[in-house]
């Protein structure tokens, strides 16, 4: 793997795009694998990525994945932050609707502090019925919960005391004690593949987090037909390629 930090010009005078390489930490293993034995390997991988110039580390998230094993990412990110000085860290993606946004905002603020202001909150709607059933949340409510949750988290990060009475969440004249290092809180990258989700990302996210597992050509084709871009006056300053290390269980 390599880092090409040179800049290229893309059609507008004075505007340039830069390719940033990132690493999504492999955190999914089949049943029977001993995760405890994998922790030193994970740390070594993080240090190697940091030393090679990878800009950031990303972590996939799910609940109830049996028989596949997946570590829960919030404690993992806190642990890894100690070995990833200077790198951006974030979930790719945290399933937001089943969670209370106050809890997510608090944890994000703490992680932003631990990473020196280098935390990015990647969030998505989720789609698995067992995950929503387990949290007692209706899958049909995921979009409005998602929208309200993001609004509330941004207020908690940027305001002192907050009064919020929404459809799903309530905060009565209270605020989070630990504020993020980054003013206004960490950027929120919104994942989505359906047209409506991509439009939502453009509307409320700081970036649309593209997962190309359905095929880059298909994703880009959809973008063209939808004419979607988060900032109608902008061009991408950075193309952040998150290299999800393909698993090699025998390694």
């Amino acid at each position: 793997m390599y880092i090409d930090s040179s800049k290229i010009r893309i059609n507008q005078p004075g505007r340039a795009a830069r390719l940033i390489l990132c690493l999504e930490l492999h955190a999914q293993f089949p049943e029977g694998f001993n995760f405890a034995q994998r922790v030193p390997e994970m740390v070594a991988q993080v240090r190697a990525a940091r030393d090679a110039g990878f800009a950031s580390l990303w972590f996939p998230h799910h609940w109830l994945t049996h028989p596949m094993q997946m570590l829960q990412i919030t404690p993992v990110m806190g642990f890894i932050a100690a070995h990833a000085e200077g790198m951006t860290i974030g979930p790719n993606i945290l399933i937001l609707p089943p969670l209370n946004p106050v809890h997510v905002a608090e944890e994000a603020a703490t992680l932003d502090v631990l990473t020196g202001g280098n935390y990015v909150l990647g969030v998505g709607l989720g789609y698995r019925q067992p995950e929503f059933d387990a949290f007692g949340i209706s899958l049909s409510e995921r979009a409005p919960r998602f929208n309200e949750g993001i609004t509330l988290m941004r207020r908690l990060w940027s305001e002192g005391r907050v009064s919020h009475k929404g459809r799903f969440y309530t905060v009565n004249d209270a605020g989070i004690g630990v504020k993020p290092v980054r003013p206004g809180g960490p950027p929120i990258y919104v994942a989505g593949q359906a047209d409506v989700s991509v439009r939502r990302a453009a509307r409320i996210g700081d970036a649309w987090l593209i997962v190309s597992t359905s095929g880059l050509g298909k994703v880009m084709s959809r973008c063209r037909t939808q004419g979607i871009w988060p900032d109608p006056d902008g061009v991408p300053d950075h193309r952040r390629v998150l290299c999800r290390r393909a698993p090699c269980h025998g390694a």
Partner: protein
Amino acid sequence: MEFPITVECYVGARHATAHEECRGPLEYKYAAYAAWGLQDRTTQGSFEDFARDRFIIGDKATVKEEIARYHEPSNAAAELGLRRSR
């Protein structure tokens, strides 16, 4: 503005054997995704066909070339931004 995209990568010692080396683990993982209800994630059929346009698999030189495509002004990602910037 950031334009983040996630791509699964595998760098093998040799291009000829790279697909075969990562095939099993990737099929396991995407079979799980398919079982969770993601209909376009099944790897039934040719793994090479499934991997094409989804993953970057090869030796060091090939993977480097493929990643560099995301940096080219003529690629789809760049077109997207430019189209909306007019």
